[in-house]
């Protein structure tokens, strides 16, 4: 029934990089969005960011030109997600934070509301323990920028129902995305491969084996990657990357996932990547 439901009403919790990405994408496809964050200051900043990202999407021609933009509402109260058909959590990549947000959201929505975690590494079934109805929770790993990259990684947890999978597929189709479905595991597919690669790339710079530009240049020029691992790290956000590496390391004990000192130092210095204007590269000013 829900797959045929054209009236999507999306609630997004967390107005950071990914929350604003997904809000830009959804409103660009005409879907109304309620964005929830902890303060009016954070919401005002998110509104500005969404306006900038909408311009970026228009520049790149990645949103349908003839669809009226969906309304963007903002709130500091989790109660305002109650009327949504789908809730997406896009908060910090810390298991306890995500669990708390999902528990609060699941307590106020109606049964049958799809709950999506935009986690990049945390197993879905770990978070399912915190929600009222585990079968309604699914992972969707949107890429960054979500409005430019069509493919998304969808994670079906062991308790995620087929009805929920149908619902999420319907929503993603309505937003012009294509889904590749994987089973639950720390880091899933993309970040189990990508995060150790980025960490190793940072280690090579730390050890003085090669410069940032040379490491990225190798992957781009020799292996055909469109963006090198360290430029990708800047796009992800180095704080988020360290959090995700910690999630992977704690669960898999894979040494290649233990955040290297250079990464940790950059996070300590506040050089978090594009969002702060500097990471492995200097962007001159805070990039939109």
């Amino acid at each position: 029934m829900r797959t045929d439901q054209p009236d999507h009403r999306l609630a997004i919790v967390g107005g950071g990089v990914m929350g604003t990405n997904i809000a830009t994408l959804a409103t660009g496809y005409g879907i109304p969005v309620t964005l929830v964050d902890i303060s009016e200051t954070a919401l005002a900043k998110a509104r500005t960011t969404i306006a900038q990202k909408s311009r970026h999407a228009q520049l790149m021609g990645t949103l349908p030109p003839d669809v009226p933009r969906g309304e963007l509402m903002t709130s500091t109260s989790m109660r305002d997600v109650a009327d949504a058909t789908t809730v997406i959590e896009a908060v910090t990549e810390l298991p306890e934070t995500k669990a708390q947000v999902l528990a609060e959201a699941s307590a106020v929505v109606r049964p049958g509301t799809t709950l999506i975690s935009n986690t990049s590494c945390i197993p879905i079934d770990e978070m399912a323990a915190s929600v009222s109805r585990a079968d309604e929770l699914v992972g969707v790993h949107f890429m960054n920028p979500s409005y430019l990259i069509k493919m998304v990684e969808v994670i079906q947890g062991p308790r995620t129902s087929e009805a929920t999978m149908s619902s999420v597929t319907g929503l993603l189709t309505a937003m012009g995305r294509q889904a590749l479905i994987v089973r639950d595991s720390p880091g899933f597919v993309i970040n189990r491969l990508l995060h150790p690669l980025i960490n190793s790339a940072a280690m090579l710079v730390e050890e003085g084996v090669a410069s940032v530009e040379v490491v990225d240049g190798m992957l781009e020029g020799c292996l055909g990657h469109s963006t090198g691992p360290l430029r990708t790290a800047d796009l992800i956000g180095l704080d988020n990357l360290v959090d995700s590496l910690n999630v992977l390391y704690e669960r898999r004990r894979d040494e290649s996932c233990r955040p290297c000192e250079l990464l940790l130092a950059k996070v300590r210095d506040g050089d978090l990547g594009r969002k702060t204007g500097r990471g492995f590269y200097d962007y001159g000013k805070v990039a939109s």
Partner: protein
Amino acid sequence: MTSEQTMTAITAEAVEEALLSFLAERVKTAVEPDQDLFKSGLVSSMFAMQLVVHLEEQYDIAVIGPDLTLNNFRTVHAMTSLVLRLRNASDTAGNV
């Protein structure tokens, strides 16, 4: 530099020269005025938006509506034409 540029007449040569210099610094490669920056892989989609904001701030213009399209930013020539057209439009509006 911004205030001086907005106060004096802006020529195609000046815009082109400033853009070539800006790009050479940012992409660390000399570019040609008619080189397709995106096709050549020199400029990413993220940098494209920075180019838009750079031109808006440098020349006190607003790139909106149908002008906000990648074709206007593909080459230094295209960006120069856009800047001059939008500057002329705002000058005309200001003189009314």
